[in-house]
């Protein structure tokens, strides 16, 4: 009898524990996402009281619009550049910082610092760096592309954003990879080098497979950052010059809040989500196959 009562007590408490999170999640996550998908099938502009159901018209016009295609193209190009630079650089940094060097914690502290500053502040500082610091250096050295601000040309603006992002963005991947390197069994590395294996081969066949899970996490994080980039662009170019750096996130923001085209903005957001889910899924499936765990 008493036991039954206590099981009930446990069930009730456990259920009560799950209520707050579930309610918040439904109200401020599931409901907006669901409502968003519903509105994307209407012609609601976000302000008026009446709207009509128009089916997938928004999706069709989004996929046809050259502005959306440009934004997607920008995001893809940017993400590829970002993944290559950040994963490459942070791997090098992690390997160096993990080797036997002096003042390790000093270097680690300095290299990690950019991660705690807000992206907006970093973006605004680099905005000034691109306007004030690089052009005089470029003029001095007679380098054509450097003597004007990188941000003022539609060809170079994406690299200016990239440089800013890399400056701040390698911090967390570097620390994650450093921690991942702790998982590499040192006995294996040592016996391989005693057997005369070359450093590159040790890296390729021992370090890399053990590092792969962390490398996957890092890559997924960087891909997500690249595909949803917003703060740096607002701080550096606001989508310019001439729309060359309008990312999908900025486009969604512009459509939803500035150009009174709410339902179109959501249709864009849904398409972007599908793309992101698809890419993360492939990425995770792919690395699960290769991982040693």
């Amino acid at each position, binding site marked *: 009898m008493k036991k039954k009562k206590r099981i009930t*007590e446990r069930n009730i*408490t*456990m*259920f009560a*524990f*799950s209520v*707050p*999170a579930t309610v*918040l*999640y439904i109200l*401020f*996550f599931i*409901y*907006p*996402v669901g*409502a968003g998908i519903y*509105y994307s099938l209407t012609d609601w502009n976000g302000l008026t009281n009446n709207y009509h159901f128009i089916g997938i018209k928004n999706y069709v016009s989004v996929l046809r619009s050259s502005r959306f295609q440009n934004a997607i193209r920008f995001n893809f190009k940017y993400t590829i550049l970002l993944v290559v630079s950040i994963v490459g650089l942070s791997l090098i940094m992690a390997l*160096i*910082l993990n080797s036997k*060097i002096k003042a390790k914690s000093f*270097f680690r502290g*300095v290299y990690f*610092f*950019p*991660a*705690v*500053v*807000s992206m*907006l*502040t970093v973006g*605004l500082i*680099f905005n*000034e*760096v691109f306007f004030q*610091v690089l052009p*005089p250096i470029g003029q001095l050295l007679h380098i054509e592309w450097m003597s004007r601000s990188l941000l003022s040309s539609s060809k170079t603006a994406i690299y200016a954003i990239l440089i800013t992002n890399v400056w701040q963005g390698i911090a*967390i991947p570097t*620390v*994650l990879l*450093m*921690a991942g390197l702790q998982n590499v069994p040192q006995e294996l590395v040592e016996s391989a080098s005693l057997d005369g294996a070359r450093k590159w081969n040790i890296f390729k066949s021992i370090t890399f497979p053990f590092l792969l899970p962390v490398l996957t*996490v890092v890559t997924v994080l960087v891909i*997500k950052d690249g*595909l*949803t980039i*917003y*703060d740096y662009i*607002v701080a550096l170019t606001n989508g310019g010059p001439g729309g060359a750096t309008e990312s999908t*996130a900025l486009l969604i*923001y512009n459509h*939803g*809040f500035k150009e009174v085209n709410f339902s179109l*903005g959501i249709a864009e*957001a*849904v398409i*972007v*989500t599908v793309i*992101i*889910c698809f890419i*993360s899924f492939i990425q995770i499936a792919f690395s699960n196959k290769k991982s040693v765990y």
Partner: protein
Amino acid sequence: MSNKLKKMKKTALYLFLIIGVIIIAYPIYLTIITSMKTPQELSRSFFALPERLNFDNFIAILTDSDYPRTVLNTLTITVFASLGTIAVIPMVSYAIARSMREKRYYKYLYFFLLAGIFVPFTVKMLPLIKVMSVMNMLNIPGLVIVYISSAICEGVFLYVAFIQGIPIELEEAAYIDGATTRRTFVNIIFPLLSPMTATVLIKNGLWFWNDFLLPLLTLNKSPDYWTLTLFQYNFKMTHAINYPMIFAAFPLSMLPIMVFYVFMQKKIIGGLTNGAVKG
């Protein structure tokens, strides 16, 4: 011979590391020297050191602007959102981790909550703001609640994995001693969760503190509500010509987090690593 080569390699390595340090420090150094100049000094040279240690710009911002209030707002938001996160997420994670095997409800709830990890913020951004505006939540408490809700998915993912690693015998002992489930959770489980709690606090705390898009969408209408990033953003818009003044706002908006970083460096780095590597 080989010794010499080794030494050269070592030197190259340190050189590389030091160049990296310069690349990281230089923009911050420039920011600080620029903020100590007068506009006249600046027009002469961008790179020269200021003629004297001139803190006028800093003092001007500290005393005659929205700075103190925005720091307070940011602090309030970060503290309450972090506390809320720590109140809500461990509870639900405990219920899920311990009941998932027996009850289907918790298993489904787990996958239901996890699904949110893959949805980027932009997809719910527009309707979320509509919901908040209907519920009269475009203010600081509203933003805090939305932050807590947005932290749930990842938090549950991290905590459930962690709780599953805690042996259940402790709870069984408490159960035999007659402790209620609530007391077992508060007195036994919650303290054991502290490594993961540190991770979740640091990850989310940095996000709440540095976030720009959500405050821009919810709090930008009045300076009374501004956070530090909004202050920084609007300050730049209104002081378009006075460069030293703009630059003085940069260190000031970084100052609180810099101080925090200097004292908590190990904890911050450790916390951020925990979630991704061991989780």
